[in-house]
């Protein structure tokens, strides 16, 4: 503790240089936090996907429909606990940029399939009673300042109503919250029976199925059984775990993890050079002072420790401030206005960030610290 004051005094020696170094580290960690949230968002919650849930889509493409009758067939397959379905609605609320996902679903089955969607019981009952009723996640409700009781008009881009009418009007009867940080709270859900009756095409067809398996360890076997069940039919299926399904979407953009790792790696390598050079310069300027410290009795280890502590302190101040700032900015929500529905800083990335702070500090301080530790007092004093 008594040496920390010495470290603190050294940090105040050249305030502008320290501030600039801190700022560069801070920016790097803001970037790290933001990229981690974007990676999480683009992988659409692969990590939070249910291990016991399968997604069953048309074998050719997800835009091909499946018969609604498959649900009963699937529920008869051994290992299937329950099944339900959803369909992409793709409507527009006021402006095309006001994007959020909308799905016609079977309320009770869907909520049972997604217990992480927390909807108050009275709102659930209201939804079951109202054919034009809809529920929405908290993020989207907050975004458009919707409240229960509002009428929400959605312009169809795919699903026109009978007679060619494009406007679908829903009564907002509930707002759900997420049980976890990664739960998608942007969805707008309305009743499939109302949708199926009112649409002017593809009645009896749905987009994809969700299937809950009894034993997650046997999910692969159940998926194969489902695909076998519908093999050689007009609508063959492709069943996979929800995680694999989500990953497949992410992979359409590219290997996001590798891209982000490359960016973060380049940023941190640059920061390592910048901070390391600053630290080395700072130690070079203080050669005489370090020699004096040694002359009065500081050991090589003391001096090495002081320089390392200084480097780690700079990294910690900049790094933790950067992580904190990125967390604060990310907490403000999806910066794209709906394209990244799951937007948060995952806990594991916070831990990685903390480890990076310490590693950055140690690496930037290591060489100057070793140099300072090995400093020969008489030589250094002679150079003064």
């Amino acid at each position, binding site marked *: 503790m*008594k*040496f920390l*004051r*010495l470290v603190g*005094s*050294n940090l*105040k*020696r050249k305030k502008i240089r320290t501030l600039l170094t801190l700022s560069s580290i801070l920016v790097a960690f803001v970037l790290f936090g933001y990229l981690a949230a974007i990676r999480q968002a683009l992988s659409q919650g692969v990590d939070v996907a249910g291990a016991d849930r399968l997604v069953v889509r048309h074998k050719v493409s997800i835009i091909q429909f499946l018969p609604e009758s498959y649900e009963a067939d699937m529920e008869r397959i051994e290992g299937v606990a329950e099944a339900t379905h959803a369909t992409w609605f793709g409507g527009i609320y006021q402006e095309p940029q006001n994007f959020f996902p909308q799905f016609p679903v079977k309320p009770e089955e869907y909520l049972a399939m997604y217990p992480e969607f927390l909807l108050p019981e009275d709102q659930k009952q209201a939804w079951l009673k109202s054919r034009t009723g809809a529920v929405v996640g908290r993020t989207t409700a907050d975004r458009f300042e919707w409240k229960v009781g509002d009428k929400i008009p959605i312009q169809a881009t795919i699903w026109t109503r009978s007679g060619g009418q494009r406007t679908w009007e829903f009564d907002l009867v509930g707002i759900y919250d997420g049980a976890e940080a990664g739960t998608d709270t942007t969805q707008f859900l309305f009743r499939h029976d109302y949708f199926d009756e009112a649409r002017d095409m593809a009645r009896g067809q749905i987009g994809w199925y969700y299937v809950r398996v009894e034993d997650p360890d046997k999910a692969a076997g159940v998926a194969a059984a489902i695909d076998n069940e519908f093999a050689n039919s007009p609508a063959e299926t492709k069943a996979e775990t929800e995680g694999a399904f989500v990953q497949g979407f992410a992979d359409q953009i590219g290997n996001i993890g590798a891209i982000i790792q490359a960016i973060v790696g380049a940023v941190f390598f640059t920061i390592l050079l910048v901070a390391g050079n600053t630290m080395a310069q700072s130690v070079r300027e203080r050669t*005489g*002072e370090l020699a*004096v*410290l*040694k*002359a*009065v*009795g*500081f*050991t*090589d*280890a*003391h001096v090495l420790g002081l320089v390392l502590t200084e480097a780690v302190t700079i990294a910690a101040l900049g790094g933790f401030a950067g992580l904190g700032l990125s967390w604060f900015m990310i907490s403000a929500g999806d910066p794209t206005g709906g394209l990244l529905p799951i937007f948060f800083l995952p806990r594991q990335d916070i831990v990685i960030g903390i480890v990076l702070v310490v590693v950055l500090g140690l690496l930037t301080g290591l060489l100057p610290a070793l140099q300072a530790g090995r400093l*020969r*007092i*008489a030589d250094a*004093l*002679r150079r*003064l």
Partner: protein
Amino acid sequence: MSRQAALDQVEATSSVSSETLVRVEGCTKHFRRGSEEIRVLEKLDLEVPKGEFLALMGPSGSGKSTLLNLMGGLDRPTTGSITVAGERIDQLSRPKLAAWRARHVGFVFQFYNLLPVLNAERNIELPLLLTHLSRAERKKHVETALEIVGLSHRQKHYPGTLSGGEQQRVGIARGIVTDPTLLLADEPTGDLDRKTGDEILDLLQALNRDHGKTIIMVTHDPHAAARSTRTLYVNEGRLRAEPVE
């Protein structure tokens, strides 16, 4: 003059105490600069009794600062031995030598070598950080040292706001704050005007006379050397009792 004759003369002029505090025996120090070997000290012997105020004089490059560094454990001899207060410091490992310096030696430098980011009391406190003293005890030691050098009223001042003489007083306070066995001063008045230099020499004399500190001072200045109890001359790596014309 032979080595023995020089030693005899050295002993003849020392009159402070019969107890030897510093004993340098057959000490040689060579440096290597590229392929060239520079012989700074050659088989040098010296005894410094406890309580003495010894001045080492000599031209630039004569080896006097090197000798001071060896006696202070800042450097090691190429050959020979150095014993301070009964301990062979040339045989100590680097960590042990550092600990020894913290306990037994105080240094005063020509250019004060204070840390500009620390105020006077924090600079003086530096050697005490290596002890087990509590914060309050350290503060008390610092106050005593400041009182001895007459700078109690400047304890919160940073080196940049102190005059050269005041900075050197802080340097001396840092040198004595641990109550060391030996105080080594390398050109302590070299950066000061005559009047301020005299004040510093008064202080060193008082430390020697009133506090019994053994002081070894390197200086170019005969006026400064005159304040010591004994003066020796280093020339071409050898110690002499008289200056070489």
